[in-house]
C-alpha cells in the first residue's frame, strides 16, 4: 500500500516536472531528415506478454532523446511494426523496416528463433540490430549488438548458485524448457557444465514443451518423482512466454515449495509475474543482470523515467527493458562519436562504449559485440518483486562462444 503511494507520488512529481519543463525546452531541430529507429517487437501472440514493454521502452528513450534536442541535431523518429510472435513474419517485417522505412537502427526480437529469422536480412542489407534479451550464445554477427546476457552471464552462475551452500546444494537438476533453439542450446551447455562438475546424466532430467503450453500436471508430477531419489533437486526453467503462468500455478497447486525444490528461471521477470498470484511462489528464483529492486541512483532515475512515461504505477521495469535502455544509450553515444548513423562507422564507434547502467554497474561493449554485465539472483517475494540474494562483485565480460560446446569452442578469441 505504502509502496504504491510512493510510486504514484513519484510519478506525479515527475509528471509535474515534465509539464513545467515542456514549454522551456522546445527543441529546435537542425535541418535534415529525422533519424529513424525501428522497433521490431511482438505486440500480439504468445510473446506479447514480454515484448510489449520493450516497445514502450524504446518509445520512451526516443521521447527522452528528442526532449534533449535529438541526435546530431536531428529529430529521432520511431517506426513500430508488429511481427505478431510469428517467426517468418519477423524476417518480412525486418526487410520492411530496412528497405521501405530505411531505418538507421533497429531494436528488436526476444526469442532466439525470431533473431535467427531476421539475422540473414540484417546481414544481407547491412542493417544494425540491438538485441536486448539473454540468450544461448553461439552467435556473433557484425550487424547485431547483443545487450542481453550470454550463458556465462546468466545460466551457469545460476546453476552454480543452486549447487552452493546458500542455494541449497542441489545435486539433481531438472531442465525444463520451451521447445526451441534457446532452451535446447542452453540446456546442452548446462548439461556439459553439470557433467564437468560431477553430476551424472542420470541426475539430469530434460523436458520440452511447446510455446503456450498450459497443461503442466504430468511434467510437474514427473519432477516430483524425479526429486524422490534422495538427492537435493532443483529446477532450471527456460520456459518462455505465457506458458510460465500455468507452470507456476501447477507448482503452487502441487505444493512444490522453494525450500524443497527451488526453481530458477531465465525468462521470468517482474513483467511476467504481473499476471500471477505470487504468494505460492515465494522463494523461487530468477537469474538476471538487473532487477527492479536494485538499489542504485541510475535505477532510481530509470524507474522515475518509466513511471512518468507510462503513467501507470502498476507497470514494472525488468531486465530486457534495462538492456534496451543501455543499448539505446550506447547507440546514441556511438552515433555522437561517429558523427553519422552510417552502420559501419557506428559499429566501429560502439566498441569500448561504456554506460552506467541501472544495474548499478558500468557496462562496456566489447569487440565480440557483447556487453559486460553483473549477474544477480533474486527470490520471488509476495509483492511480485525480487529479493536479490546474490550478485557478482563486478560486471563480467560475455563468453558468447561457450567452452562447453566443443565444435564452437575453437571460435573463441581472447
Amino acid at each position, binding site marked *: 500500500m505504502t509502496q504504491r503511494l510512493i510510486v504514484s507520488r513519484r510519478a506525479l512529481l515527475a509528471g509535474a516536472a515534465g509539464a513545467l519543463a515542456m514549454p522551456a525546452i522546445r527543441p529546435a531541430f537542425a535541418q535534415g531528415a529525422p533519424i529513424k529507429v525501428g522497433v521490431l517487437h511482438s505486440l*500480439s501472440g504468445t510473446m506479447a*506478454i514480454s515484448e510489449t514493454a520493450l516497445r514502450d521502452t524504446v518509445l520512451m528513450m526516443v521521447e527522452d532523446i528528442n526532449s534533449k534536442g535529438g541526435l546530431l541535431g536531428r529529430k529521432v523518429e520511431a517506426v513500430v511494426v508488429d511481427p505478431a510472435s510469428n517467426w517468418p513474419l519477423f524476417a518480412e517485417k525486418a526487410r520492411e523496416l530496412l528497405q521501405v522505412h530505411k531505418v538507421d537502427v533497429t531494436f528488436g526480437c526476444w526469442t532466439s528463433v525470431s533473431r535467427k529469422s531476421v539475422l540473414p536480412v540484417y546481414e544481407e542489407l547491412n542493417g544494425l540490430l540491438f538485441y536486448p534479451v539473454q540468450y544461448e550464445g553461439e552467435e556473433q554477427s557484425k550487424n547485431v549488438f547483443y545487450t542481453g546476457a550470454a550463458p556465462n552471464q546468466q545460466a551457469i552462475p545460476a546453476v552454480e548458485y543452486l549447487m552452493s551452500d*546458500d542455494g541449497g546444494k542441489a545435486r539433481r537438476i531438472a531442465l525444463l524448457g520451451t521447445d526451441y533453439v534457446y532452451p535446447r542450446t542452453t540446456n546442452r551447455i548446462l548439461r556439459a557444465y553439470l557433467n564437468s562438475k560431477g553430476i551424472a546424466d542420470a541426475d539430469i532430467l530434460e523436458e520440452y514443451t511447446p510455446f503456450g503450453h498450459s497443461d503442466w500436471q*504430468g511434467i510437474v508430477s514427473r519432477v*516430483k518423482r524425479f*526429486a*524422490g531419489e534422495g538427492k537435493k533437486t532443483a529446477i532450471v526453467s527456460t520456459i518462455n512466454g505465457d506458458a510460465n503462468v500455468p507452470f507456476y500455478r501447477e507448482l503452487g497447486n502441487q505444493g512444490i515449495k522453494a525450500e*524443497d525444490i527451488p526453481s530458477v528461471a531465465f525468462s521470468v521477470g517482474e513483467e511476467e509475474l504481473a499476471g500471477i498470484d505470487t504468494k505460492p511462489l515465494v522463494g523461487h528464483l530468477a537469474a538476471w543482470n538487473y532487477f527492479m529492486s536494485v538499489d542504485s541512483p541510475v535505477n532510481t532515475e530509470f524507474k522515475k523515467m518509466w513511471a512518468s512515461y507510462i503513467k501507470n504505477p502498476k507497470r514494472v521495469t525488468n531486465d530486457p527493458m534495462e538492456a534496451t535502455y543501455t543499448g539505446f544509450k550506447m547507440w546514441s553515444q556511438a552515433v555522437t562519436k561517429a558523427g553519422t548513423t552510417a552502420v559501419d562507422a557506428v559499429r566501429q564507434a560502439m566498441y569500448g562504449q561504456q554506460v552506467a547502467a541501472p544495474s548499478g554497474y558500468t557496462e562496456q561493449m566489447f569487440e565480440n559485440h557483447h556487453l559486460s554485465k553483473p549477474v544477480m539472483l533474486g527470490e520471488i517475494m509476495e509483492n511480485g518483486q525480487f529479493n536479490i540474494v546474490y550478485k557478482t562483485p563486478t560486471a563480467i565480460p560475455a563468453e558468447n562462444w561457450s567452452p562447453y560446446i566443443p565444435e564452437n569452442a575453437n571460435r573463441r578469441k581472447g
Partner: protein
Amino acid sequence: MLRVLLVLLVLAVPARAQDAFTTALAGLSGNFTAQAEAVERLGALGDPRALPILQALGEGRLLKRADGVLLLRQGEALREALSGGASTEAGEVLRINNRVRGALRGAFGRLQLLSPVEAERLAAADGLFRSRSAENVAMLEDALGREASARVRPVMELALAASRLAAGEDSAKRQGIILLGGSSSPEARAVLLEARAANAGLAAEIDQAVAAIDRRLQLKRAAETAFQGLSLGSILLLAALGLAVTFGVMGVINMAHGEMVMLGAYTTVVVQEALRGIPALAPLSLPLSVPAAFLVTAAVGVALERGLIRHLYGRPLETLLMTFGVGMILQQSVRLIFGAQNREVVSPAWMQGTLQLPGGIEVTQNRLWIIFFSLVVLGLTVAAIRFTRFGLEMRAVVQNRRIAATMGIRTGRVDAMTFAFGSGIAGIAGVAVSQIDNVSPNLGTGYIIDSFMVVVFGGVGSLAGTMIGALTLGIVNKMLEPWAGAVLAKIAVLVGIMLFIQRRPKGLFALKGRAAEQ
C-alpha cells in the same frame, strides 16, 4: 501441565541461557548463513519467546532499527521484539532466502509441536520430517504420546521414523526404516535413499523398504495419470461441448468458437474485478461468472447468427472464412479494450492446493472442480436438449426444417437460440479455462483445433460421442506423455485421429438414419 512446565522452564533459565537467546537473536540480522544458524539455535533453545519473532521473520515483518534493535510489525504498529515497547522509528525489513526458510520450518517444528492448534502441529510435524535431526527423536516420541488427531499422527510417525534414521544406534534406525517402508510417500522414499549412502550396513533393509514403497507408488502413479487424463479430457469436453451444438447439431463451421471461450474467460476477469470492492460478494465471483459468461457469449452468439451466419447457411466455405474473420475481430477488440497483456484471475482458496485421497493419491483441487463442473455442464446440456420445449424445437428443426416450420415453429428464431446456446456453453468453458490457462486475447486459438478434433472424433451431432471422445483423447494423451514427451504425445494423438477418421469417417458414434444423411 504445559503451563507448569513453561513456568518451571522460565524459572530454571539461568542468566547464561538468557544470553544464549539474545546472542542467537542478534544473528537474525546477519547474512543468510548467520541467519540460518541463528534460526536453528533459536529452535534448539526451545524458548517460546522466539516463536513470534521467527514468524515475523518468515512473513517479512521483522525489521532492524538503525541501532540494531529488532522490531516486529503488526499491522501498522511497530514494537520492539524483546521488550515489547512501541517504537516510533522504523527500520529495514530483514530479508531471508530459501536456506533460512528451510531452517525456519525446522524451528517452527520444534516450537509448535505441542501447539493446541491441529494445523500448526501438522505443519510442525512436517517441518521436523524435512529437517530430520536425531535431536528431535525424544521430542517427537513425547508428542506422539499425547497426539490424538488421526490427521497429525501419521505425519508425526513419519517424522519420528526419519529422525530415528538420523540417530546413532542401528536398532533405532531399523525401526525407522520399517516405519518409512510402510508409507507411500515419495518423500519417505527420498529419505531412505538419502540414508542409504551413509548406512552401508543397512542397505539390504533400505532396499527392501524402498521396493515396498515403489510397489505402492506404481499404483498411485497409475491413478494420478488417469486423473490427469480425465482432467485434460474434461477441459476438452467443456471446450468442445458448445461446438458439438453449433457444429454438430446445426452444421455451422464456427471458427470463432475459440473466441467465445476467450470472451467467457474475460467475463470472469471483469466480474472478479467488479466484485473485488464488495467483500461480501468477492468470494462468489467465480460462481457468479458462470451465468454472466453464458449471457455475454450467448448475446454475442445471437448477434453473430442473426447478423451474419444466417445469410450463409448452406455455404460452409464462406461460413468458415467469415467466422474466422469474426474471430480475429473479436481477438483484436479484446486486445484493444483489455490490452495485449495477460489478465490475472485469482483462484478462490477452495480451488487451490491438493487433496489427499486414500492411498496417498494426490489430486489438485482446481482440476477436480473442473472435472465435476464439466460433468454438470454436460448434464445440463443434455437435459436442455432432451427435456425442454426449446430442445424439442431444436431437434425438430434439425431433423426436418420444412415440416417443423409447417408445425408453427419459428425456425429462424430456433436457429438463433441454438447458436446462442452453443456459444453460451463455450462462454461457460471460458470460466473454467480461466482457472488453468492464461487469460489473453489469443486464448481461444489453443482450443479451436482441439474442439473440432473432439467433435469429429466423437461423431458429429452426438453429445455422448463428444464426451467419450474428449475423455479418450485426454487419457491417451496423458498416458503417452511420460515416455514420449508433451510435444510427441500431441503429435501421436493427432496421427491416431487421422488414421481413425480414415477408417471411420463418421467418428465413434455415427448418427444413423435420415437426419445424418443431410
